[in-house]
């Protein structure tokens, strides 16, 4: 087990740059930012991942708005049916909706 200063440096150093808290705090989508340099975003859009942007925090987070985000958008298909334009069926997992699946 590691403790004391070493832990502090590791965790806090990371927090200031790329880790959990630092990443979550800034949380810019790098693919979106790169794309925006050549393809300007629409008014009102920004390269901030929507899960951390305003509105959804207390009542469940909102759906992602950028395709480049790792939080993939739902194709909106229903249980067991093929997705439009593909041969994949979806909805075969996730039937226990509602609460937390963790423990």
């Amino acid at each position, binding site marked *: 087990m590691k403790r004391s200063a070493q832990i502090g440096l590791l965790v806090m150093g990371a927090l200031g740059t790329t880790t959990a808290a630092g990443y979550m705090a800034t949380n810019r989508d790098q693919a979106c930012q790169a794309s925006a340099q050549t393809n300007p975003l629409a008014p009102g859009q920004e390269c901030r991942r929507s899960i951390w942007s305003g509105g959804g*925090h207390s009542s469940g987070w909102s759906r992602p708005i950028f395709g480049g985000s790792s939080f993939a958008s739902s194709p909106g298909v229903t249980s067991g049916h093929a997705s439009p334009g593909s041969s994949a069926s979806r909805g075969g997992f996730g039937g226990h909706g509602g609460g937390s*699946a963790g423990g």
Partner: protein
Amino acid sequence: MQRVTCGERPDWREQAEKVGFVFHTIDDAPYWDETAYYAFALEEIERDLEAPTAALDGMCRELVARALADERIMRRLAIPVEYWNWIAASWKRGDPSLYGRFDLRYDGQGPAKLLEYNADTPTAVFETAVFQWLWLEQAIERGIVPKSADQYNSLHECLIDGWRTIGRGRRLHLAGAIDNPEDRGTLAYLEDCARQAGLDTRVLAMADIGRMPDGRFVDVGNAPIELMFKLYPWEWMVREPFGASLPGAPTQFVEPPWKTILANKGILPLLWDMFPRHPNLLPAYFDDDAAAATLGASYAKKPLYSREGANVELVVSGATIDADGGPYGAEGYVRQAIAPLPQFSGNYTVLGAWFAAGKPCGLGVREDMSPITKNSSRFLPHAIIG
């Protein structure tokens, strides 16, 4: 082990939300609670918690090997027979585990006792790994704890190490109940650790996982899912419509399929049978085992599959003193010797001992006014003092 009342940091809510810890309050009640902290001596951590956590992991691995060699055990655990070979193959390959959390009864006196093992979908990981460490740093700065205070907590580093070993630079899909704030936060944090380990990541809802005609799993863009972390229990997945495709799919899962065996309260009587009178175990029996009568009229009755205290019943002298409702129990129950949680300032306290990347690496403390720990039980930070 002591509960020490202390002042809150006035800005902790803002800090929590700034780092993405948005579920610090659940249903208008505090989930993160820093009006007190738990102080441990280093010896208590090392002798009574860290070493037993490693021992418990070792015993659980012995149990997996034994279960896969004895179909009576697999039946006892109500694991569907069509998945046995798939589970066995995952064990034989050595599919790696990222993490797990042992819930322990401990009061500073005598050995810690295993209450249950959250082997498959443990949560409370971000608050353990990051937010209570932030508390410690600031508690030292603000004089809330001595300058020499420490914390049993290398969980963050272990998770990154674990992803580095498991991922080997591959793309990782993380799936779960992303409409639930706690689960979405847990996925975001584990995704973050994976990115720090050099993995390319994608998060998606369980319902968005696609299945191709040949049984391969794909994401919303139909890209193959080669490596998937699922914050979704195995016992649900194997019983859902796509479950039948799990054994034939080339996807590597985290947690691995062999964790199906350990994510089951049936391990409590099985461990007691394999390691009788082990100091970190409580006597336990399957509910329909005649030997369960040896527990007398006082015991904890737990469903084989259950989470967050659901359908757990505490019976003392034949009377139910506490019970939590829920949807579980169809697969059967176990009875475990009653080991009342210690009370500190009127609160019932349970310890969550983390095991990640192959080693014991951290501690979370939960409190409740009820003797059954639930999803709403408060999380308090801890420190090693002396």
